[in-house]
Every structure is written in C-alpha cells, then in structure tokens.
C-alpha cells in the first residue's frame, strides 16, 4: 500500500480567522448599537444555519459543500490510499470495513463508487463525515478519503484518528 497524506494548511486557519473577524466584529458592534433585536436575531441565525447543516449532512449531494476549501466552518483532512485490489472488490471491502468499525455507513453509491460514513456526537465533536471515493483501473485502486468535522473549525485530532482507524480496519481486514 502507498500512502499520500495531505495535512491541513496553516493558511486555512488564517482564512477562517479573517472571515470570523469580518462577520463577528460588525455583528458585535451591531449588538451594542441595536441592542435586544440583534440579541435574538444572531443566535437564531446561527441556530438555523446549524440546523440546515445538520439536515444536509447525511447526503452525498452536499459533499462538495462540506469538503470545499471555501467552507471555513469545517476542518478537513484529505488523504489517498493506493491498493492493488480491483475497484469493485475494494468498494465491497470498504463497506465491510465500515460496518465492522465504529463508523456508521450512511450512504453508499456503487454507480459513482462513493461512500459516506459518519461518526456520532462526542464531547469534542458534533460528529464527522468521512467521504470515500474509489477510483482506478484494472488491479490498481486509489481511495480518496476526506474526513470533515461538522460545524467545527478545529477537529481536536478527530480527523486524523478517523483516518488512522479506517486504515487500521483495512489492514486488519486483509487477514482472512
């Protein structure tokens, strides 16, 4: 197996900080000036945005929204794993691995060779989405894995842990 790991860039954090400042500073000054109206509008806005994200979370249609570098409200970790197992077999294998792991298989689309697995809510996270897309021809298969936190800019190492757990699961499953 060949591993290529892309770690999150520091510039992502800078973009997030700038965007937060642009949004928060006028909001807070508005809060001071306008008073009680904004006190209600701002939390309601955040809550509705959170609910919207919660609703679209379990769908592969919104994959690009969550994994996009522009989406600064999520922390992402992208990795690639290459294996010499045919694509069809690898897809079935991944489903088996996910079912035997702590992850919950949410969507599996065999026509596009895409899988969406999720983790539950914990003290450090609202849960993470793990997007797996399988590509390749013949015997060689490349799996693109992207672990994304939900409504959370810092993953507390959850993305890395998810990736490692998934790799460990694959390695273990290759012992029959």
């Amino acid at each position, binding site marked *: 197996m060949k591993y290529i790991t892309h770690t999150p860039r520091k510039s992502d954090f800078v973009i997030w900080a700038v965007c937060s400042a642009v949004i928060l500073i006028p909001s807070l000054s508005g809060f001071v000036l306008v008073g009680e109206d904004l006190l209600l509008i701002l939390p309601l806005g955040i809550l509705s945005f959170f609910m919207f994200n919660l609703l679209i979370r379990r769908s592969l249609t919104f994959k690009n929204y969550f994994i996009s570098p522009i989406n600064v409200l999520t922390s992402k970790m992208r990795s690639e794993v290459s294996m010499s*197992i045919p694509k069809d*077999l690898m897809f079935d294998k991944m489903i*088996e691995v996910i079912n035997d792991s702590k992850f919950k298989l949410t969507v599996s689309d065999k026509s596009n060779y895409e899988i969406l697995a999720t983790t539950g809510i914990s003290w450090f996270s609202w849960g993470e989405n793990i997007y797996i897309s399988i590509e390749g021809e013949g015997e060689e298969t490349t799996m693109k894995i992207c672990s994304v936190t939900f409504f959370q800019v810092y993953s507390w190492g959850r993305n890395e842990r998810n990736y490692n757990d998934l790799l460990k699961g694959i390695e273990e499953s*290759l*012992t*029959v």
Partner: protein
Amino acid sequence: MAIVVNLDIMLAKRKMKLKELSVLVGVSTVNLSILKQSKVKAIRFSTLDSICKALNCQPGEILEHVKS
C-alpha cells in the same frame, strides 16, 4: 508475490462456487475473492483449516510457492 493461492483451481475441481464456499467456511465472499486473487496479507490457520475441510484437500493444494 511468491505465494500463489490456487483457490480458483480447487473450486473448479470440486465444482463449487465461491458463494457456497463462503457459507461453508464462514468467510465473506469479498474476503474469499481477495484471497483468490492472492491480495491478502495473511491467512489464519483456522480459515485454512475450514477451507481444507470444505474442499476436502490439503493446504499445499491451495497455497503454492513460486520462485520470483
């Protein structure tokens, strides 16, 4: 790889399908397919024992060492 798995040959000799073997051995068809293609990292003695029982053969008939 230097170790070749001749599971497909044994299945053909016994006129058995992979799915039937999967039921008899208790290993998923996905895992048996990967084993058949010699892509597995390791094989447990218990699995080998079950396969030998199901196919009524010796481990040497399933596994073969080829000089690479």
